[in-house]
């Protein structure tokens, strides 16, 4: 920068940097750098210290988010937009970050096989990576320029590729590779979409695109093609059918904390940007893209639910379930361009979903700790058979599992119910009643597999007589309690979060 400045004849009119607007992201990235340094120069640093630092960073970011609560502006010449979506997504992402940190902080507590390092525990670098990923996610949610969207997406993707493959298990590496290859493939499509949009409108700025989209040069086909390719990229990230196929493999293969983080965080960031781009900038073209989103929603809801039914691995089942949930969110998105409630419903859904799904994965992690150390390489303790009689042996974890499963099913009065309800309201309001009916069918199919987990955990007798006693699970316990508490609390008193989501209904740029 300085080098360049010296060579130019006149000083660059560098615009004032709006530090405040991106303060939370800066805090996250800054903490990430600090942690990198700590890890680099103090290899023996205890996990709890790293986790504590991460949490401190998250706390700072949370404070800054609160400080910025009433900020509503477009910053960096339209690159970043500070509005309700940004704000709400930050809340969701910070919550996801806290839970994921706690999960990652939990050590397996098992003795390593002789002569080997434990394959389970992720290296200490996951903490900075987690923060960088969060930074990317937050930037993605705030991005108001397709270029920033692309870069933010890459930040979070690259972090996640690495996190997924950070342990030595073959399954984790396979997950990382598949995620990476397909992710790169799909981001090429996204990029092509950005190029076509740029070509059609002359800008990558969302405000500019919004202006150009209602007054297109030519017949607008080019822009539509661009939209289509953008949709491909986003749909891939949020795991919608038929761009979902990586999801089960990656969710199953990646270490459970990473899976949980991916499931909740990527979905939140992905849908935030999806909402901003489609319901915001491209709202004028809703007639064109709504059938696409609706059709994808239909197949996503049905296929996700149906495929989950036949799974025998809990993580994999949750992956398919997350696909089905992406479908419900797509209903909210389809509604969002004409019905503002679609935006708030989707955001509220993301928040509720984050706690439910991460909670479910926490139970998996909890159970994994209990497994014998010589468990097969590709499998964690996530086969449904491993959960036989789980609830009887671990009443608290079992009870929470029930809470999460019922919340995911959408049984009132748990958070999942209100989320689903709100999305349905938005869908019906937008005249998409048929889509809501499909969502109902999908929910019914979903009930099968969520119930199956409960059947196994509650209604079947434990398989083996005794399980090895694992170490304490303080961090995980806190995370579990938090997720369960919030899931129930949102169910009983969703008011505040709904009202907050409502303020996000106006999209700035």
């Amino acid at each position, binding site marked *: 920068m300085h080098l360049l400045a010296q060579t130019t004849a006149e000083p660059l009119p560098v615009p004032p940097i709006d530090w405040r607007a991106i303060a939370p992201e800066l805090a996250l990235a800054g903490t990430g750098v600090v942690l990198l340094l700590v890890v680099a120069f103090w290899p023996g640093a205890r996990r709890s210290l790293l986790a504590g630092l991460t949490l401190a960073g998250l706390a700072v970011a949370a404070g800054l988010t609160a400080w910025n609560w009433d900020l509503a502006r477009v910053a960096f010449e339209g690159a970043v937009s500070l509005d309700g979506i940004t704000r709400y997504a930050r809340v969701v992402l910070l919550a996801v970050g806290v839970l994921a940190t706690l999960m990652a902080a939990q050590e397996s507590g098992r003795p390593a096989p002789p002569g080997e390092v434990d394959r389970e525990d992720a290296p200490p670098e996951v903490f900075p990576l987690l923060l960088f990923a969060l930074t990317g996610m937050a930037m993605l949610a705030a991005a108001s320029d397709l270029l920033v969207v692309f870069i933010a997406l890459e930040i979070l993707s690259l972090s996640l590729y690495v996190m997924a493959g950070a342990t030595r298990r073959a399954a984790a590496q396979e997950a990382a590779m598949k995620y990476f290859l397909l992710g790169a493939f799909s981001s090429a499509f996204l990029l092509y979409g950005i190029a076509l949009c740029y070509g059609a409108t002359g800008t990558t700025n969302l405000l500019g695109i919004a202006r150009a989209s209602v007054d297109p040069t030519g017949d607008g086909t080019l822009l539509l093609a661009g939209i289509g*390719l953008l949709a*491909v990229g986003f749909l891939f990230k949020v795991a919608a059918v038929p761009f979902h*196929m990586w999801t089960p493999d990656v969710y199953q293969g990646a270490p459970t904390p990473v899976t949980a983080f991916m499931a909740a965080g990527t979905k939140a960031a992905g849908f935030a940007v999806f909402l901003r781009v489609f319901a915001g900038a491209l709202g004028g073209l809703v007639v*064109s893209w709504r059938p*696409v989103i609706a059709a994808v929603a239909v197949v996503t809801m049905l296929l996700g639910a*149906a495929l989950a*039914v036949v799974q025998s691995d809990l993580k994999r089942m949750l992956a398919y379930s997350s696909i089905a949930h992406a479908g419900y969110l797509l209903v909210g998105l389809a509604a969002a361009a004409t019905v503002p409630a679609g935006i708030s419903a989707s955001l509220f859904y993301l928040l509720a979903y984050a706690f439910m799904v991460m909670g479910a994965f926490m139970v998996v992690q909890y159970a994994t700790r209990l497994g014998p150390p010589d468990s097969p390489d590709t499998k964690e303790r996530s086969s449904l058979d491993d959960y036989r009689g789980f609830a009887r042996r671990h009443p608290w974890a079992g009870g929470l599992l029930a809470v999460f499963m019922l919340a995911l099913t959408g049984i009132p009065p748990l958070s999942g119910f209100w989320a689903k309800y709100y999305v349905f309201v938005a869908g019906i309001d937008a005249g998409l009643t048929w889509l809501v009916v499909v969502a109902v069918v999908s929910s019914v199919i979903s009930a099968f597999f969520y119930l199956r987990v409960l059947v196994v955990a509650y209604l079947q007798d434990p398989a083996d007589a005794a399980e090895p006693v694992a170490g304490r699970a303080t961090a995980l316990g806190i995370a579990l309690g938090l997720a369960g508490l919030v899931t129930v609390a949102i169910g009983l008193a969703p008011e505040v979060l709904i009202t907050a989501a409502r303020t996000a209904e106006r999209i700035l740029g």
Partner: protein
Amino acid sequence: MVAAAFAIAVAALFELLGKDADARTQILRGYAWFTSGDLRVAFDLRWDQLSAVMALVVTGVSSLIHLYSIGYMADDERRETFFAWLNLFVAAMLVLVLAENFLVMFLGWEGVGLCSYLLIGYWFDRRMLVVNPLGRLVPGEPDGTYEVWAPPAAKKAFLANRVGDVGFLVAMFLIFATVGSLDFEDVFGRAAGFTGTTATAVALLLFLACAGKSAQIPLFVWLPDAMAGPTPVSALIHAATMVTAGVFLVARTHVLFEASATAQTVVVLVGALTALLAALIAIGQDDLKKILAYSTVSQLGYMFIGVGLGPIGYVPGMFHLITHAFFKAQLFLGAGSVMHGNDDDTDVKHFGGLRPSMPATFLTTVAAWAAIIGVPLTAGFYSKDQILGAAFDHGGIGMFAWVVGVFTAGLTAFYMSRLLFLTFTGQRRWPDGRHPHESPGVMTLPLAVLGLLALVAGFLLSTFTGEGGRLQDFLGPVLGTPDEYPSLASALWLSAVATGVAALGAGVAWLLYGQGGTDWLALRVRFAPAWRTLAERLYIDQVYEFFTVTLGRALAAFLAVTVDQRVLDGAVNGAAELVGTAARSGRRLQSGLVRSYALGVLGGAVLILAFLVFRS
């Protein structure tokens, strides 16, 4: 208790008699049972001549039968239950008789049905003799077997009654829909509202109920089976009182029946056919009580002929109801006495020559026998002849009824005489080791009273004046009076014919069974096809069973297995299966190969792009 009720009834009767004929109807207001919209059902009681007569018969006969039961049931370990139910029956019967409202009457109606069910099934686990009517006909056939047959019989009775009760129910609905009330007062007062089809429907539905309760075609099959109950029950419920409730209902609601000539014709026709059919079947039975049961069915048929004829026949019908209560109660109690003295055997083939051992039973039974076959001056003679006379005078369908009735009178005389002779006269056919003995006084006293009533009741309640008689005078204000009474001369002439036919029947019976000389068992074998048909009750029960039990169960099984499990549940499970199958094939796409996944991404992209680009 029942005797006290009888006493009260008698007192009330005298109070009634003390009033003017037209003011004799009293209505006693009770509390409202339930109300709903316009419907108001109260426990109001109606005390008029008709209910008084019925109440007297019911309480009187049941007093006697209670007395009898003390002796008959002395050895039963659950006799408290027995008497409790018997009393419940009397109460229900009184509710039925005294009701001022269709629904309250229905309460009694079903109440007596319940008691009938309970009492028939009283010996729910006792093995009782099932007399085989084919015994001594087909070589090797036993005379009878010992089986537990009370529970199915009770159930059959209840179900047959239920069919009738549905008629009652629907009739009530129709009445309420038409006049907006179920009180007798309102309904009869607004009977003009019943015209055409509605009138016929109401009357026929009510008659369906009567057919159930009073064992008429097509619902008569339960009554013979009901003989599984203790004999006093058979006497009280299945001869004297409950089964006559149908006749009473027709009389009580005669206004409704008068509104439909069709219904009246049906009543007469059914009554006549039932009388004939039952009499025929009675000939072929060997079971003492079943003969009497079919006889009851047959006599009830007479009563329906009477009440179906209109004003001319109401009183004769009721008259026959009363006399029949006496003589049939006696016959049953007599049969009970015979059973009591013969180790509970009911097979007439096993009796013969019982007269010396059971003189009191024999004498009183002869009295009742005389009444039922219509020996002149006995009760049955008066009442039956009044019905036949009314039928003859009525003309039309009545004439048909008269012909059938007279013929049936002959059959009645035949089978009743057969019963009497086979039981009390001729050779002793009872097995070795049995010591027939007379019953105790507590049992013979009611026999004597009823026997006496069977002889004199007709004479007391009637005079051969051609003016109807005392009962007609008493009941006339309630049931109406005919325009003209049959003349004395024609009545005498008609009686003569009937008596002659009856005498013929009795004479044939005497020839066959009375002297003890004829080998009637040989005759039975000789005319085997005819006998078998009669013995098998004209195969009616088998046909019924085929249509209800066999076909019904097949249908139910079809529904339960094929429709419910395969089709309906199959559809549900099939939907689940469909999801599973689709998912399993979808799972195959999830091959684990990156390149397949990439193909999926590309496919989706192409679809979306093609839609967006080529649609616009």
